[in-house]
């Protein structure tokens, strides 16, 4: 393996569905990949809310359970 090798692909669970992610990639990258940059969302990582400014510093190792939520109509 050299430094230029692509990162190992791991699996995370996003909103209940398994999804590939590059090991060591950030939650912010995942959010951007899913098209949610700039959208009103909140992110939970293994049961803990991750404030938006902290998304860039939280790295994925694989196996994490991630919830990405927004507001919908409700009473």
């Amino acid at each position, binding site marked *: 393996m050299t430094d230029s090798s692509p990162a190992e692909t791991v699996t995370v669970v996003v*909103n209940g569905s398994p999804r590939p992610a590059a090991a060591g990639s950030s939650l912010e990258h995942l959010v951007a990949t899913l098209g949610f940059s700039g959208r009103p969302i*909140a992110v939970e990582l293994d049961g803990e809310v991750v404030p938006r400014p902290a998304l860039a510093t939280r790295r994925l190792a694989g196996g994490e359970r991630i919830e990405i939520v927004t507001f919908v109509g409700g009473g």
Partner: protein
Amino acid sequence: MAATDALTTSPDAADAPLVVGGITLASRLVVGTGKYATSAEMARCLDVSGTDCVTVAVRRERLVNAAGENILDHLDATRYALLPNTAGCYSADDAVRVARLGRALLRDLGTATSEWVKLEVLGDTKTLLPDPVGTLEATERLVADGFTVLVYTSDDPVVAKRLKSLGAASVMPAGSPIGSGQGVLNPNNLRICLEYLKDGDPSYPVIVDAGVGTASDVALAMELGADGVLLNTAIAHAQDPIRMAAAMRDACRAGRLAHLAGRIPRRLYATASSPDDGRIVRHG
């Protein structure tokens, strides 16, 4: 003097506004944003209802078609205080988790009500009645975590008192089951809730949440002395939701004014409105 003032100024001007958790609300109606046929209809109904506080739910983002519209595209968060609910939660743990996600969303939006939550901990899917034990536990935990808790509960006065003593910013007894349209089924329980919750604390906000079917239900709740009414389905699923939104707005105002005005006592027998003196005929 107060009476003279009331005659010379708008009847509404004599009323103090509803304050919940330090935030002043111009309207006493809290309106839900669920179940409308279209987002445009929702926006119009909210506008017509006069509300300035609306509930929203917290749900998973769609991972496909993620670029689709968001409810916030149709809700001006500077006009409406957003009140996220924990609908669909059947345990204190789940409700606390959802409340924290709602708070994260509100904090990103920078809203004045970023610590607000409409707490629901439900008992079962058929009745959607609150689980009182889970509701008490979640209230305690959320208050400790800094939330302003507006809590959905039954019309049980003892539970209502316990929720207030745990620090709930507003206790919100149900008139009848959520979405049932049965109105206020037990006005006497609601009266006792109001008496207990406002004892020595008359401005403590009590909002009747759930069960409203039509305008008279709102008027009745307000006449009993509730500080506000929270409703959703009664507008969203009316045959003409926009017209019903107007009816709810007027019923809320009418009920409040009637409460402040003080109704006459009920009597079994009639009392004539026209004078006995000066009649040209005699009877009995």
